[in-house]
């Protein structure tokens, strides 16, 4: 049986970054496993630009970003298993985990001290957002449509309705428009767009694509192929407003209604899950409740910037190297992060206070002139504007944390009083 110090599961941006970082930190035996035939995860199908402004200080397309990352990886020596799907993880004991994977060469059973789990996320399907009606063809998730077009060369349809105005939905609206399709509307249930302002301008406004805010798709109509969707206006509680129902003719419905971390293999192990992120509860080295198993990238928290996914890969790798060299991640006491006010989540959920930590979070609803307070360390950060679509990233350094004596830190976001 092969024995590794670290196995990285998932060869997207965060996974490659984790493998690179671990090698740079001197971890000897490292493997990277991905079920695809190529590395990069979702990046190779993102043919638009907007990647890498932080990490490479350049504006790159998805494929270009991947290429640069892979070039960096090639200078280091670690095993890459592509076309290899991990189907089971076993936690033997503190120092030994088993990873079972399948490829055309058979079943591999790999032994390892640590795991960085970076398997990305999946898209929510039409059934998860409560649309009713018939179940014809012509309904795709955004990522699926992108794969069909840019990996396999299949044009899904001509008259498009898009559900969800997150960045993925917006980018797909533009992708379809560029290909000559008629994008009839982008429908968003919230009263504000889900994506970045630059994407609203570049993907919708520049192509005269209508954005219907506070609208919801109710019902699909069509037998073999979708023919129409029924749409309505919604009130503040997202309830359909009577008499506001209308139909839009289309042959394609694109669902871009949110992403969910893929942590099934970890759930099977019984790790603690945070209902707010639907992923693992982690400490400041992104270690899960099972020692030596780390999570990074979209499998931890859905990132809007690849740079953050990469950063998380690196933090997890740092954790893995510490685990390998010090036999574990140390902390005199793990402090819990508590949330208050306009906050959807923050990761990590546990911090030691003994080292620098990067926190990632999102708010529940858009708000202007707000402050983020962490009373225990007397920290206050002002924001001109916060929006659910823009992840909040902040670094807390060990000096400001070292004085904390309490068992928890409370993050709260509220209006600034002026």
């Amino acid at each position, binding site marked *: 049986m092969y024995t590794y110090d670290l196995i990285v599961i998932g060869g997207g941006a965060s996974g490659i970054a984790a493998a690179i970082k671990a090698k740079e930190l001197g971890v000897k035996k490292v493997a990277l496993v991905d*079920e695809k035939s190529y590395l990069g995860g979702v990046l190779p199908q993102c043919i638009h630009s907007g990647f890498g402004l932080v990490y490479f200080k350049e504006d790159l397309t998805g494929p270009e970003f991947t290429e640069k990352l892979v070039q960096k990886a090639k200078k280091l020596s670690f095993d890459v298993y592509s076309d290899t799907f991990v189907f089971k993880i076993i936690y033997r004991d503190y120092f030994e985990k088993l990873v079972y994977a399948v490829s*055309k060469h058979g079943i591999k059973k790999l032994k390892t001290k640590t795991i960085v789990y970076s398997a990305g996320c*999946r898209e929510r399907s039409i*059934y998860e957002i409560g649309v*009713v009606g018939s*179940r014809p063809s012509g309904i795709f998730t955004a*990522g699926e449509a992108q794969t069909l077009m840019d990996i396999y060369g*299949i044009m899904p349809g001509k008259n498009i309705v898009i559900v969800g105005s997150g960045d993925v939905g917006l980018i797909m609206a533009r992708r379809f428009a560029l290909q000559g399709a008629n994008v009839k509307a982008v429908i968003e249930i919230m009263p504000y767009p889900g994506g970045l302002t630059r994407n609203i301008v570049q993907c919708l406004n520049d192509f005269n694509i209508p954005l219907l805010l506070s609208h919801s798709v109710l019902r699909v109509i069509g037998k*073999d192929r979708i023919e129409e969707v029924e749409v309505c206006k919604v009130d503040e509680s997202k309830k359909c407003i009577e008499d506001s129902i209308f139909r839009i003719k289309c042959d394609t419905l694109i669902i871009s209604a949110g992403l969910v971390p893929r942590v099934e293999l970890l759930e099977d192990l019984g790790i603690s899950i945070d209902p707010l992120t639907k992923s693992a509860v982690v400490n400041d080295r992104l270690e899960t409740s099972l020692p030596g198993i780390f999570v990074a990238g979209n499998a931890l928290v859905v990132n809007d910037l690849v740079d953050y996914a990469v950063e998380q890969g690196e933090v997890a790798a740092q954790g893995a190297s510490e685990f390998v060299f010090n036999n574990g991640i140390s902390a005199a006491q793990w402090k819990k992060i508590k949330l208050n006010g306009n906050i959807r989540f923050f990761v990590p959920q546990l911090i030691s206070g003994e080292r620098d930590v990067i926190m990632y979070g999102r708010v529940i609803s858009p708000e202007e002139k707000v402050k983020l307070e962490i009373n225990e360390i007397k920290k206050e950060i002002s924001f001109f504007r916060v929006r659910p679509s823009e992840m909040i990233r902040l670094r807390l350094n060990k000096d400001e944390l070292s004085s904390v004596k309490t068992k928890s830190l409370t993050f709260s976001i509220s209006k600034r009083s002026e």
Partner: protein
Amino acid sequence: MSKARVAIIGAGIVGASIARVLSRYENLEVHLIEMEVDVGWGVSKANTAILHAGYDDDPNLYPNRAKYCVRGNYLWRKWTKQLQIRASWNGSLVLSFSEEDEEELYNLLERGERNGVKGLRIIEKDEIQKLEKNASPSATLALWAPTAGQISPFEAVTALVENAVENGVILHLETKVLDIVEDGTRVTKLVTNNGEIEVDWVINATGLYADYIAELVGGSEFKITPRRGEYFLFDSTAEPKVSRILFPAPKPKSKGVVVTTTVDGNLMIGPNATDLPEEEKENKETTQEGLEEVWINASKLVKSLPSKSKVIKTFAGLRPEPTGGDFIIKPHDSLLGFINVAGMRSPGLTSAPAVAYEIPKMLLHLGARLVLKKNWNPTRKRIIRFSEVSNRRKNKLIAMNPLYGNIVCQCEMVTEAEVVEAIRRGARTIEGVKLRTRAGMGRCQGAFCRAKIAMILSRELKIKPWQVRVKGAGSEIGVGDLFSLLHE
């Protein structure tokens, strides 16, 4: 020996069962005729998939349902083994929540005994909890029916058809019967969109359309009206599941909303019962109100349901409700050679094998001669499920065929070899592959694998990728080829 030609119209569970039974005879040339691109896409595709014990149907009001259900339940034990169809015989509990309900349980018990159902018993709270730890604690009593079970209905239809074809039955897909020709005394020909088929016997097993087909030869006085039932299906990881089939005390229209775990291990709740106009035979739409009704009623049966975020699919099916409410299994009054097997509403799935054995009896009675084959093959092998075999077996499979090493559907761990095998066995569409292999039936509902399956279908069927059909005619996955557009 000249063969008599039998045409079975409709390849649902009923037509497929009849095809299998008739394939045992040397001197019959059996044609199974189906308008869809695949078998089993009618009523048989979307239902509760329960092999009922047989206590529900009043033998005075519905003698056929009462008789065939119990017999069918018994026969399925043998058929599922011979044909390697997955079934679980976990038993059902009808729960009571009021005195009225309790009375109904005693009625069911008495009726079940009259119908010949074995093992029925009324049980009390503590035993209910022992048999099903997720049963609602407010349930006062339960009727325990240990013979009830659960099957995969689509797998059942494909298995039956594969076995029938193996034994010489001729399958006609995408062939819609448009007219039936007779010579004054008996049927002679079927007119279809694919030409004419000469026949001596016609069996009408067309589910929701049985009244339309019966009308072609006149003299039938029944209508089939659709009664819709809606469902939620949960992710296989969603907890808590149930280990038994849970029913409420039945209502006149239906057996009520059920909580059950499918043979594939997914919790499923449904169906409600909504009567639709007779012509809405395709209206399988789900509705907000219907689904809400299902959720509320299912919640009453259990301690708790998984959260709604664990729902991976909602869908609906149509029960073919006949005039009078009972199965209509009989030859035409005056025209020789035409037999109706119509109005096969619930428990039609359970009853299908028993009903099928009725057909040769009827043929004999009507003057046909039947000679059994010497080398009839009763067995069929199922598609190997890579995810279910041991690691050692997995390695062997990959060594034999490297396509087993390529995972196509990650949620259900379905390999390329299984997809190719499904195509070899007749899948022509993404839906056909999905129903045979489970690829695309997991939590992502095909978002990760549909494109890959389309590419495999394109390769195997030698058609362009965008031309691959998701479901029936007109359901192509795309409208054109981007790469060739770029090259133009």
